[in-house]
């Protein structure tokens, strides 16, 4: 899938020989290439009469030129999550599509996981790492509950998740998390994370493949940036409608986002769930 333009920037040196990285579900493979400045074509250095490599085919058999395969333990299963905090509520939403490369594995997989009655974790990334992270968190929360005789407060969950992610600093969980919940004072709280556990409490957070489409929209609508009109507090029903619109946009532009959105609204009364269908294309 490498076009000539991206190929020129993607060529890097490996043992002194120019190599073109090929991306596939098998992980990384590299094929050594030579650029001929006069005719702008890519050809094997050993055989000038060979066909032009278009990069979209992986040769599984024997080739003339040597290339290197490697196993990648990570795979990106797609998906987008979004969380928004309010004065007394938090809304967290994620699409329900699970993909691998260009294939859809399931249209109905949940990316949201309630950790307590007041706290939900949304994660996009590699499904197996996400599932394992959740199991680990569930166990830690159970132990906390047994030791402290109360469920964990949301800021404590946030810190615990950060530490759990950092514990695997040198072989990270491929999981892009957002944590949404109600803090001990009853206010909405949203925390954004990176893959190795750096976190921060933020007014909203989006992660996953569609985050680039959601974040600018949220900056304008929720954080009221680059707007000249008066800012007003948004009620929870309006925020839910905004979330649905946002996922419609992300679903249009991002191939990994679609099928349906699962929306959870967290208030001090509890967690309410809503499903909203998106295009299945």
């Amino acid at each position, binding site marked *: 899938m490498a076009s000539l333009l991206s190929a020129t920037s993607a060529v890097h040196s490996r043992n002194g020989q120019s190599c073109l990285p090929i991306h596939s579900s098998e992980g990384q493979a590299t094929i050594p290439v030579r650029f001929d400045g006069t005719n702008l074509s890519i050809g094997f250095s050993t055989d000038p009469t060979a066909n032009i490599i278009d990069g979209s085919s992986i040769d599984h058999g024997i080739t003339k030129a040597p290339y290197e395969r490697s196993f990648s333990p990570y795979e990106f299963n797609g998906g987008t999550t979004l969380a928004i905090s309010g004065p007394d509520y938090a809304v967290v939403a994620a699409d329900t599509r699970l993909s691998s490369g260009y294939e859809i594995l399931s249209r109905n997989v949940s990316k949201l996981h309630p950790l307590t009655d007041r706290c939900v974790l949304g994660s996009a990334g590699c499904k197996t790492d996400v599932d394992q992270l959740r199991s680990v968190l569930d166990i830690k929360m159970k132990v906390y509950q047994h030791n402290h005789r109360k469920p964990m407060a949301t800021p404590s969950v946030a810190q615990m998740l*950060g530490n759990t992610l950092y514990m695997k600093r040198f072989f990270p969980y491929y999981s892009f998390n957002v944590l949404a919940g109600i803090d001990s004072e009853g206010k909405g709280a949203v925390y954004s994370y*990176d893959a*190795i*556990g*750096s976190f921060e409490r933020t007014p909203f957070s989006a992660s996953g493949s569609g985050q680039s489409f959601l974040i600018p929209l949220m900056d304008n609508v929720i954080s009221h940036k680059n707007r000249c009109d008066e800012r007003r507090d948004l009620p929870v029903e309006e925020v839910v409608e905004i979330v649905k619109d946002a996922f419609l946009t992300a679903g249009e532009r991002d191939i990994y986002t679609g099928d349906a959105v699962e929306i959870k609204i967290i208030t001090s009364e509890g967690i309410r769930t809503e499903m909203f269908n998106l295009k299945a294309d």
Partner: protein
Amino acid sequence: ILGTMAGGAADCSFWIRFLRNESKMHELIHEGRAISVARASRLLSSVLYGNRGLDLSVGTMIMGYDKRDGFSIYYIDNTGVRIKGDMFAVGSGSTFALGILDTEERKFDMSEEEAVTLGIKAIRHATLRDAASGGFIGVYLINENGWRKVFSQDLAKAI
């Protein structure tokens, strides 16, 4: 004792938090006696030296006041280096900040206001020139009794 953080976000937050916990433990073990800046900074630098070669990214300054040494600043980074000094600038924008700091007429008995003003000027120049620096400016002042925040500015709201 204050610590600044530059480099990898997760690495810095985790290891500074580790240092905070160890300092608290020290106080509890030694009956309320506060940890010295030299000791705290060495705790951090030892652990970073031990993790050398694992591609951590941490650039910090540990500073504070104690009775034995007065005011001290220690620069510590992921290579395990720990150096005491009177003035440091750390991070991707440090060269720009140092340009301001080194060309100002520095007296060693600068007043607090002059020092704060100089700090703000240096940081503001770094945010101007360095793509990776910006957002907010925060200035903290440390005296014998502790630290407090003296200046905070959101650069989006500044002119």
